[in-house]
């Protein structure tokens, strides 16, 4: 499908013009599904974007994060984020163009908000979504501190987290394929 056709299809939907709906009601709908208010989706609506949209109230410091990390994360990620058995979280700066690139939160991840989102939705591995908002801010701060990205005195919240500058923020390009031969 050409870009123009995609745009046309999207436009038709936006206008409620009944695109691709041979049956259904006058508006091209089938009357299936149940209305739900955004406030009833809150417990599922946990995604966080780089601009901070979706970040919950709460706050956590590097010091608090160290306690959370040592209690709930270090078994899999190492005492200082060095990894093994699970992913390495720390280090690797300057290695991405070398023969042995080390991709970590510090060396590779473009957004600090992604770390918060991922920890919030999946961690700890055997107790997913088991951390509260304060704990998640705190452990995010600690992992960023271990990478030398934030100061030891840092506290993160919905305002400060999106402002954290990640070293590899400018390291990504759009898909350029087909690129070979």
């Amino acid at each position, binding site marked *: 499908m050409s870009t123009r056709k995609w745009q046309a299809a999207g436009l038709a*939907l936006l206008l409620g013009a009944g695109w691709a709906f041979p049956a259904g009601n006058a508006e091209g709908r089938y009357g299936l599904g149940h209305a739900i208010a955004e406030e009833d989706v809150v417990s599922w609506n946990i995604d966080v974007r780089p601009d901070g949209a979706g970040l919950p109230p709460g706050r956590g410091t590097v010091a608090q994060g160290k306690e959370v990390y040592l209690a709930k994360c270090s078994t899999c990620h190492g005492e200082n984020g060095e990894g093994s058995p699970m992913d390495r979280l720390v280090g690797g700066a300057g290695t991405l163009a070398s023969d042995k690139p080390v991709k970590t939160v510090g060396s590779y991840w473009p957004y600090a908000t992604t770390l918060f989102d991922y920890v919030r939705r999946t961690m700890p591995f055997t107790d997913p979504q088991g951390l509260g908002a304060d704990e998640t801010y705190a452990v995010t701060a600690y992992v960023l501190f271990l990478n030398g990205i934030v100061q030891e005195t840092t506290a993160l919240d919905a305002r400060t987290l999106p402002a954290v500058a990640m070293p590899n923020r400018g390291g990504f390009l759009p898909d350029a394929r087909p*690129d070979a031969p």
Partner: protein
Amino acid sequence: MVPKASLGRAAGELDASRTRLGRRSWLKRTAFAAGTAVASGSLVARGAAGAPLGVPETVRKLGNPILSPEYGLPSPHESEVVRRPTDLTPTQYSSWSFTPLQDLDGIITPNGLVFERHHGGVPDIAPDAHRLVLHGLVKRPLLFTMDDLVRFPSVSRFHFLECSGNGSAEWKEPRGKTAQLTHGLLSCCEWTGVPLATVLGEAGLAPGAKWLLAEGGDAAAMTRSIPIEKALDDALLVYAQNGERLRPEQGYPLRLLLPGFEGNMNVKWLRRIKVGDRPFYSREETSKYTDLLGDGRAREFSFVMEAKSVITRPSGGAKLRKGFNEIRGLAWSGRGRIARVDVSVDGSKSWQRASLDQPVLAKCLTRFRLPWTWQGGPGLLQSRAIDDTGYVQPSRSQLVAVRGLNSYYHNNSIQSWQVAAGGEVTNVHA
């Protein structure tokens, strides 16, 4: 019951022989096995050697009744045709298993052999309790039960599904010993569901709607950003594969299917779609599934799985017998239909056009074949897919020249199977 003593000698020996040698040996006897030792173990060969054929036990006694069992299973003699795990992950809960491509025919993957890639284990979800939420930049946020979704007008389509990590371990060195381990993060099913465009139409897109976030109901709460163009083009909300409801490990009761896009985006156990005005930059689309280039920068949002092919027979681990062999393989493209497949038996010095089995469908596996007589001596088997956009599957060196050796995902380079003088087939880089 027929007394054991009255059974033919050959039949008794067949059972003993199968028990002793197992299925793999049986396959080899009937396919690529060479040498007198194995061939002499064959019942057919023994009959042909002069001894009269015995009467098989199976024609002298009743077989099993119907419903043995209620849900049918493969023959016990096929017990080695199974998914096999990677040896690269520290846990079985975030890991992957490969489809045994070298043991399969046609283009459809049996449901029990479809490859797996989970990030937080396989959840057990009761369909009556499952809900899909569609919200964000929509006019009417909606909640759907499975019953609601099944009531929509449905479509069934044949599409391949390939993990973008398929072949990732092959970038730097030839590692997998079989086609299963080099290319087995690849499967193909008939998928049934409702077009995502239909369901989006039910909610009505609000102005500014450009990206969707798809989220799974598993312990990884898997999330990927989907461009609205794909959502409105051919995306499906799928509840059935190959005629039956999805298998748990394929997202039961509901998954997203984005034909031709990398496997990870086809979110399983789908429970939420949020419409937004920009991508969400989840962990899987930033720290993973991005393509690190030689200069240290990385490509993001590499969605399409480009044209690729692999010879599945003979392939790694096989042993060729001299004489006639049909070369068989699979080709596919995330951009459309396969237009042509070329096969080389001499390491790209010369190419022959393979025949394509019908049907040849867009974003679907295509089976190719080429008759071949192996005279003995070394060879190098390769296949090259060309899709209907004119794109030609690259060689490994062409891909490495552009992306370097640190890349990991989206390896669609030509596979090389080396044939040794004695007929052994192995995975090599050529």
